[in-house]
């Protein structure tokens, strides 16, 4: 009986194991290799969140916050521009 349960439970876990392994390997691959793409993908959301934070202090329009990624040599530089109201 015990033995049976052992096999059952180890089988039951393979999807969870797969998920965990994938999350680790993908996080690693994202942080090296194809980095730029992932930064680009994050920009719209990041821009929205930055906008929300700044709006706690200043009244600004959406187009007053811009985010850009520039490549300088080996580095990606994240450029944030906020135009404040007069």
């Amino acid at each position: 009986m015990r033995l049976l349960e052992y096999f059952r439970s180890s089988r039951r876990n393979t999807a969870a194991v797969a998920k965990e392994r994938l999350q680790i390997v993908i996080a690693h691959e994202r942080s090296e290799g194809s980095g730029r793409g992932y930064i680009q993908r994050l920009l719209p959301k990041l821009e929205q969140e930055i906008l929300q934070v700044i709006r706690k202090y200043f009244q600004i329009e959406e187009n007053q916050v811009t985010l850009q990624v520039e490549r300088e040599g080996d580095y990606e530089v994240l450029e944030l521009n906020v135009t404040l109201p007069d």
Partner: protein
Amino acid sequence: MATIIVVTSGKGGVGKTTTSAAFAMGLALRGHRTAIIDFDVGLRNLDLIMGCERRVVYDFVNVINGEANLNQALIKDKRVDELYILPASQTRNKDALTSEGVNKVLSELFERGFEYIVCDSPAGIEHGAFIALYFADEALIVTNPEVSSVRDSDRILGILASKSRRAENGAEPIKEHLLVTRYDPSRVNSGDMLAMEDITDILGIPILGVIPECPSVLQASNSGVPVILEDSSRAGQAYTDIVGRFLGENLPHRFTTPEKRGFLKRLFR
């Protein structure tokens, strides 16, 4: 202005061509003027899945090279109006697809009033897959619930976001849709297959739909019928839902829980 949709995956054999055929057929069934292009130069297969292999005279590369015009190469589907197929060349290799050439063909399709252009990508992350996704506005990422397919999909997402025309021009990013195919809910339940929620968690893109593992897919391909035309099949219905959702309808997911087995089925399992 036409919308260019690439069906892509990185990994081979996950259901891109099956999906391209069903999806394009579904759009045409809804009355949208749709063209479907086979980018798998050298390994032409879309013609077989669409059931038009005996009507191929000229192909995509012939048009690019000016050996035929688009009219001569486009094959009109016999089952539905508004659907046209542009087959891949069987005798060339993928380098024959230059970006100027592909761009020219796409612009010509725009001029002819096509609303949707579905690009069936080859597997891999080489030139063929790059050129298939380069001009895309939206992408269907076809993924099987299996570790290597999920990882490869993530690679493709990186490429969509960095190597596409939209990325290069700093335009709005390509709109990504996850499509999980060959899904087996009973195996998900017993814990030996990744669940659709796991895959969306890992890849972080919205899910357009789930296609169950379904014997009708093979049967439909045997007879050259896009599976979406098999109204009674689960895969066909799931693809119909996907087209509906793509066009903005709010439809619940189906076929994502194990089928209730009848007594006899259980007996002969």
